[in-house]
């Protein structure tokens, strides 16, 4: 099913990053900057007004957001697809768990090691995955997610088997006047900001352009001299790195890892978060993370009997209202706000969609999901 109208929306949004439109763009940039700074101030002051439990909830949101950003880079910006990022989340988590408990390595280093390991693992997995497209890639990655708990149980000398590993929660350094939960909040928030910044830099530069070119039209990209194989594997690696770092932080936040955490449901949950937030967006990852963290909890408040029915209904309603995710909706709202003259807007659309191929749906992420062959 090819869906030109909506695929165009995705392209508009992503290509908007580099579209040049003098007056409107500066407006939009100003708006975004103000919003960003305000958000940052709120984010850093927030834990002071929160209970420890709420600080922990937000910590979880940040961790999910990092993982989802990894997925967005892969799906939204590169048109590849993964139902298996739970595996990289597990790899990151176990890296930290094993290194801190067995070898007493400070946790800070283990976060970096987790990222590097996942980068390599993702790259290596990305190489054979090049052969797969659409549904077949979905299965290849899903296989990874399914095997994870079994593999973790199998190597029980390392992983503690089904008993899992209990970690120590990071203690507050330098005698800072905050408690452990607040410290974790700031730690994850800072890592999140660094990684978001990195993603932003990566995506708006040469690498990002190459990634998106592959997504929009692989053959044209190849013809223009982009090494598709290299870039696709590399994207897989970077994506896995993000998710792995999230896993590492997740292990620290909960102070416990066990195979049951990393089941196939986790990977599907990531996908849900990614789509709800908006796949071709950096900031969307945060919305998606908030969705998968809070909606199940509030669903329970509404109905004790069948909370997941509530979750399903909310998910479906979200998709009705925001078929391109929260970020997609925000983008449209922002566009409305920043450019009033309607003539300009239609001109903009032409600019923005021109890089898209003749059949915009053909290689868009939407297609990655369907694995449609024509």
């Amino acid at each position: 099913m090819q869906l030109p109208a909506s695929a165009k929306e995705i392209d508009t949004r992503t290509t908007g990053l580099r579209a040049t439109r003098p007056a409107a763009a500066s407006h939009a940039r100003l708006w975004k900057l103000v919003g960003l700074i305000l958000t940052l101030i709120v984010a850093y002051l927030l834990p002071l007004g929160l209970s420890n439990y709420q600080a922990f909830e937000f910590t979880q949101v940040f961790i999910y957001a990092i993982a989802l950003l990894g997925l967005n880079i892969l799906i939204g910006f590169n048109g590849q697809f993964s139902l298996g990022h739970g595996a990289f989340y597990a790899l990151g988590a176990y890296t930290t768990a094993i290194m801190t408990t067995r070898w007493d390595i400070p946790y800070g280093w283990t976060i970096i090691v987790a990222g590097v390991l996942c980068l390599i693992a993702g790259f290596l997995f990305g190489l054979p995955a090049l052969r797969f497209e659409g549904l077949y890639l979905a299965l290849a990655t899903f296989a990874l997610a399914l095997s994870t708990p079994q593999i973790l149980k199998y190597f029980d000398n390392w992983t503690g088997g089904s008993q899992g590993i209990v970690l120590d929660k990071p203690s507050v350094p330098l005698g800072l006047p905050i408690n452990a939960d607040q410290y974790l909040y700031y730690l994850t928030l800072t890592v999140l900001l660094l990684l978001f910044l990195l993603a932003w830099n990566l995506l708006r530069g040469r690498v990002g352009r190459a990634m998106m070119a592959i997504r929009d039209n692989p053959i044209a990209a190849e013809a223009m001299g982009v090494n598709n194989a290299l870039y696709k594997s590399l994207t897989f690696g970077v994506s896995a790195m993000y998710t792995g770092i999230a896993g590492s932080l997740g292990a620290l936040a909960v102070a416990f890892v066990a195979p049951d955490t990393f089941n196939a449901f986790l990977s599907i949950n990531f996908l849900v978060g990614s789509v709800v937030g908006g796949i071709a967006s950096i900031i969307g990852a945060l919305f998606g993370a908030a969705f998968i963290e809070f909606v199940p909890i509030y669903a329970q408040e509404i109905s004790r009997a069948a909370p997941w029915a509530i979750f399903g209904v909310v998910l479906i309603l979200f998709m009705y209202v925001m078929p391109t995710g929260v970020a997609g909706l925000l983008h449209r709202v922002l566009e409305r706000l920043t450019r009033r003259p309607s003539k300009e807007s239609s001109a903009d659309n032409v600019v923005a969609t021109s890089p898209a191929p003749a059949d915009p749906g053909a290689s868009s992420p939407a297609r990655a999901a369907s694995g449609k062959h024509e």
Partner: protein
Amino acid sequence: MLRKIVNLVLALVLTQFLAVSLGHAEEGVTATEIKIGNTAPYSGPASAYGTILRAAGAYFRKVNDEGGINGRKIVFISYDDGYSPPKTYEMTRKLVEQDHVLLDFGPLGTPCNSAIWKYMNDHKVPQLFVYTGASKWGDPKGHPWTMGWQPTYHAEGFIWARYILDNIPNAKIGILYQNDDYGKDYLSGVLDGLGNKARDLIVKQQTYEVTDATVDSQIVNLKNSGANVFINITTPKFAAMAIRKAYEIGWRPTQFLNFVSASISSVLKPAGLEASKGIISAVFLKDPSDPRWANDPATKEYIAFMRKYYPEGDPYDIFNVSGYSCAQTMVQVLKQCGNDLSRANVMRQAANLRNLQLPMLLPGIVINTSPTDYYPIEQMQLGRFDGQRYELFGPIYTAVSRGKQ
């Protein structure tokens, strides 16, 4: 300006600290209420167990209807954790820090309880009657705030092994177990019970995953190994499949079935009563579908309770009997606490249960705890299924739980 901000921040931080440090007195108890928390898998792969805590919640409603405990009503807050340890941790923190519960009652699942084990003990919040049979919960020295309830998986495996050594001279044992902590705990009980004979007697071990569609292949392998004893360590659905498949392919070993799946109505009937004949199981609860208890007043009362307070639940599901009994244990502890409903006293009373008889425990089985004995139920009796009910035989075994050896 900057100084102002710094001052503001410091003031905020300080109030936070005060709020935290003052929050501890008499958590979860008012003149009219006792707040009890719980996490259980109402969704996800282990959702079959969710009914245990629904039955327990229903029992608390009954207690409230009858006037509560020393004039206080029980407020039972039970959250779904989908059997995911991080979720358990999160929801438990919500219970403790946001809902301010007095204690966490019957959190379900070994990995889930492992995830909150340290947290509960660090924060000195009772983690009482955890719903898992792992043997590590009876550790009063290392984890004084955590206590189990049911007989340990290890103990049950141990009892089977002893029975096999004494009664089946040329046993060749085939084992099917779920590939997780629950299965492995049973397995270790069997291995410990068999001692150095384990290597000779066990001819084949097979595992399955909860996501598997069937266990047919494993049963075929066990049959082909020539085993004449089949130890079936599986959850209800797989237990029923295993029993039926063994029967279909003409394998007739002596079968041992873990009590998790010993239910007549939800396992043996689906598997086929004929196929289930001869199955041996260690039991400690009255199975309401066993005709022996049809006229037992306690069983009748239980059935009436189910009909009234949990009509959507299946009264013949042994899980519900279990949740009902576990909740009764909790109520007993709270009654014993009297008016001193501090967390410390709750633990003192939980470790001070003397010969407690519960209506749905098998006659002769009692609950005992002490400051050094954190294993409430340690007795079981073997029963052999005769096509209609479990024919109890042999002594009541008092299992040596591993923590105490």
